[in-house]
């Protein structure tokens, strides 16, 4: 089926199988491999992207469901000159990543959280990231990074 959407500011159009998961469309068709797949149960959040500015798990959506939306992936976060998004920079400054596999999803979930709650408490940051799993960091520095990005640390 024909699908049209805007991905990281570019109009994209494709003919895909109806069952194509959004994450596979982004990765396999558009080559946007920064969005990762870490589970098959909507549990881990490695596939988190933004649709119309809100975080969603792209493994639990059909590409067809994203027709006519504005999709942002991790590749769309840094500006064209390569300067990191403030959230990416905060993760770097706070050592909020190790293997980096959960990181794109964490960054996308965290930016969505701050959009909805610009000055979260530490507890609210933890709650906001409840759907994103990390096996390396123990979350300590991820939480610190999000607090830093929010200007609260």
């Amino acid at each position, binding site marked *: 089926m024909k699908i049209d959407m805007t991905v990281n500011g570019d109009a994209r159009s494709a003919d895909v199988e109806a069952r*194509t998961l959004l994450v596979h469309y982004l990765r396999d068709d558009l080559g946007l491999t920064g969005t990762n797949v870490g589970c098959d149960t909507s549990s881990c959040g490695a596939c988190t992207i933004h649709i119309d500015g809100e975080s969603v798990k792209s493994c639990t959506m059909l590409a067809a469901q994203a027709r006519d939306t504005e999709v942002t992936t991790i590749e769309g976060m840094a500006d064209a000159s390569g300067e990191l998004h403030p959230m990416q920079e905060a993760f770097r400054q706070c*050592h909020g990543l190790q*293997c980096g596999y959960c990181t794109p999803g964490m960054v996308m979930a965290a930016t969505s959280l701050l959009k909805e709650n610009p000055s979260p408490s530490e507890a609210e940051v933890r709650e906001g990231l409840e759907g994103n799993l990390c096996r390396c960091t123990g*979350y300590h520095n991820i939480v610190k990074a999000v607090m830093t990005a929010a200007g609260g640390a």
Partner: protein
Amino acid sequence: MTAVMGTPMLRKEDPKLLTGENKFVDDIQVAGQLWMGMVRSPHAHAKVGTIDTSAAAAADGVHAVYTGAELAEMGLWAAPLPCAWPVTEDMVNPPHFPAAAEEVHHVGEIVAVVLADSRYGAVDAAELVEVDYEVLPAVASIAAARDGDNNAHSDLDSNKAYSWALEPNPEGVDAAFANAAHTVKGEFVQQRLIPAAMEPRGVLAIPSPAGGEVTLYSATQVPHILKVMIAATTGIPENKLRIIAPAVGGGFGAKLNVNPDELLAVTLANKLGRAVRWTETRSEAAFSTHQGRGQLQTIEVASDENGKISGVRVHLDADMGAYMMLITPGVPLLGSFLYTGVYDVPAFGFTCDGYFTNLTPTDAYRGAGRPEASYAIERAMDMLANEVGVGPDEIRRRNYLAGGGPFENLETASTLVFDSGNYAPNLDAALALAKYDELRAEQQSRRDAGSSKQLGIGLCTYVEICGLAPSRALAGLNYGAGGWEHATVRFLPTGKVEVVSGSTPHGQGHETAWSMIVADKLGIDPNDVEVLHSDTAISPLGLDTYGSRSLAVGGVAIAMACDKVVDKSREIAAHQLEANPDDLEFTGGQFQVKGSPDKALPIQAIAYGAFTAHDLPDGMEPNMNEQMTFDPPNFAFPFGTHIAVVEIDEDTGNTELIDYIAVDDCGNQVNPLIVEGQLHGGIVQGVAQALWEGAEYDVDGNCKNPSLMDYLVPSAMEVPNIQTGYTTTPSTSNQLGVKGAGEAGTIGSAAAVINAICDALSPYGVTDMEMPATPQRVWKTINNAKAGA
């Protein structure tokens, strides 16, 4: 240049990871690739009957379908999957091939493979393969294996795989127990754990039909070991194999194996002349990637009337799972030496029986044997404290090696020589950071008030073995390889440096840490250093990353290679400055004649001189390219004190970890930012074993919680911030004085948490809590204790 080692330099790896630029295996796409779809057994133990592949073969986009029997007939296997650690001469090692031909021995074992031209098509076609099974009784636990009513392998007459012992002083142990004033005995279950690195495993094999080479991209910790093993198991000449571990999303031991999918991809790509790939799904990983732990432990401790230990006796029954994977049988041995902990134990004995079950094979998982050992002795220390009637801190103080004071190169009852230690100050630092006395007061006031929210405080003073390993020590354990690590350090003509690392990162930050070592050694900017790794064509020599060995072996190799570069540069500098080499001092990246600061040459200028070769000493090779293969003289033994503070809701049985204090000593630190991050993650992984995780099986050998919906890897909501502190006791095993921190957190934390739970519930007479301490289990334990009181 000021020293960068010891500073929290930001990681060089991060920008690529933060922007999605890094390529993990599944991110790499090649034209003409075929996707493997695995047909896996739904039974834990069965004879494989007729397999009907016709519907799958006829499906759109399907290129080929092979059954296990067909793969065997095709002559793809020169040898079974390897076990590199036959721990005894008579160890039973049933043949294990990438796909079963006659009998399956665990759920998820591959019986056929489909090759299709799309990710989706491979999954569809695998579903179309029809397999007849004759189901056999399954052995689904260590207890069932030990009972022996059924055999996990039909052609074996027992489930026993091996018996191994470390009994340097059996008479001493017997005497210790015969004469003891106090004895305690703990029986602990180390439940099976699913490693769950966030990146599932994956492979992509790219053949060269004309040239005969095969390149394998694999999400592996061990590209070098894999290369040797793939050559041995497939018969493809080693010189025709290239293994690349691209960005790898965590390992924790789960990616240090030689797996069926890796061998299938390489051999089928080679046979078909097309790229072949596969990416594990999360729920599949419970069957396609090995698991950790899986032990029943019995530990007995004897002491005098003051709680001074006189002997420790340990027995393990260890669950191998269905097959011996790369180091499956050796995991208990890795722990065996640490059942005496940081304590002065006059007499020690350890025995272990390995058993086959019809479950996913076990192998290394963060700590590999050592968290189990630490758990047993640290739980037993708390039991002994209760028996003697002293606090958990005091019982430890009474037993520390060297009286808790500083020591170097001290032999323990388990026959190891600890490189260095200084335990009492470390304990003191942790107690102070935790405000231990205030916590105890708070605990008492809650008890006095009859609160239903009990506070528990748990200590663990762990030690671990890092820096695997002196090759001769491995020989003594019958391990099939050495423990050295290789490094190359070379100056480029423009004064930049390339480092080739034999150890391979998967999140640890090698590029940053190695750059820092080189920067200090050569007096250059760390950003002038590029670290190359994880590709056997670029880094041909290496023994990879596991066992907290990268820094203490691989990092030290880099430092030593730098020393060689400096030595050679000194010769060139002396020649060009017309000075005696001994009159040159190397500081801040330049050689200068002592007392004549105007006569100086920067090392980066010497590098250019080595490239032009216009003015080198007679006979000197024109390069600045040095190699070092470092075989450590001894292990390194980091240690630390962890304190867990839990709150237990008696009404629901829920345990909340409300604070965690860790004071670690990993010797000198290259990058404290990285050390701290490793500790945070390791601690949470051990806490997860204590509170949430455990692979659960039914009696038929089906895993009941393979997905991340049911296997509870904790989120940010379940864990607190972690308070860290450090003491520094440099290692004597290497020139950097470094130890290792990759596994330390995990080794200290499970015991600390369970000790805290037992501490919280001690008023009810609760003395033990099986892991994971689920709310239901805690609630029932409280109820039973109250009923029994």
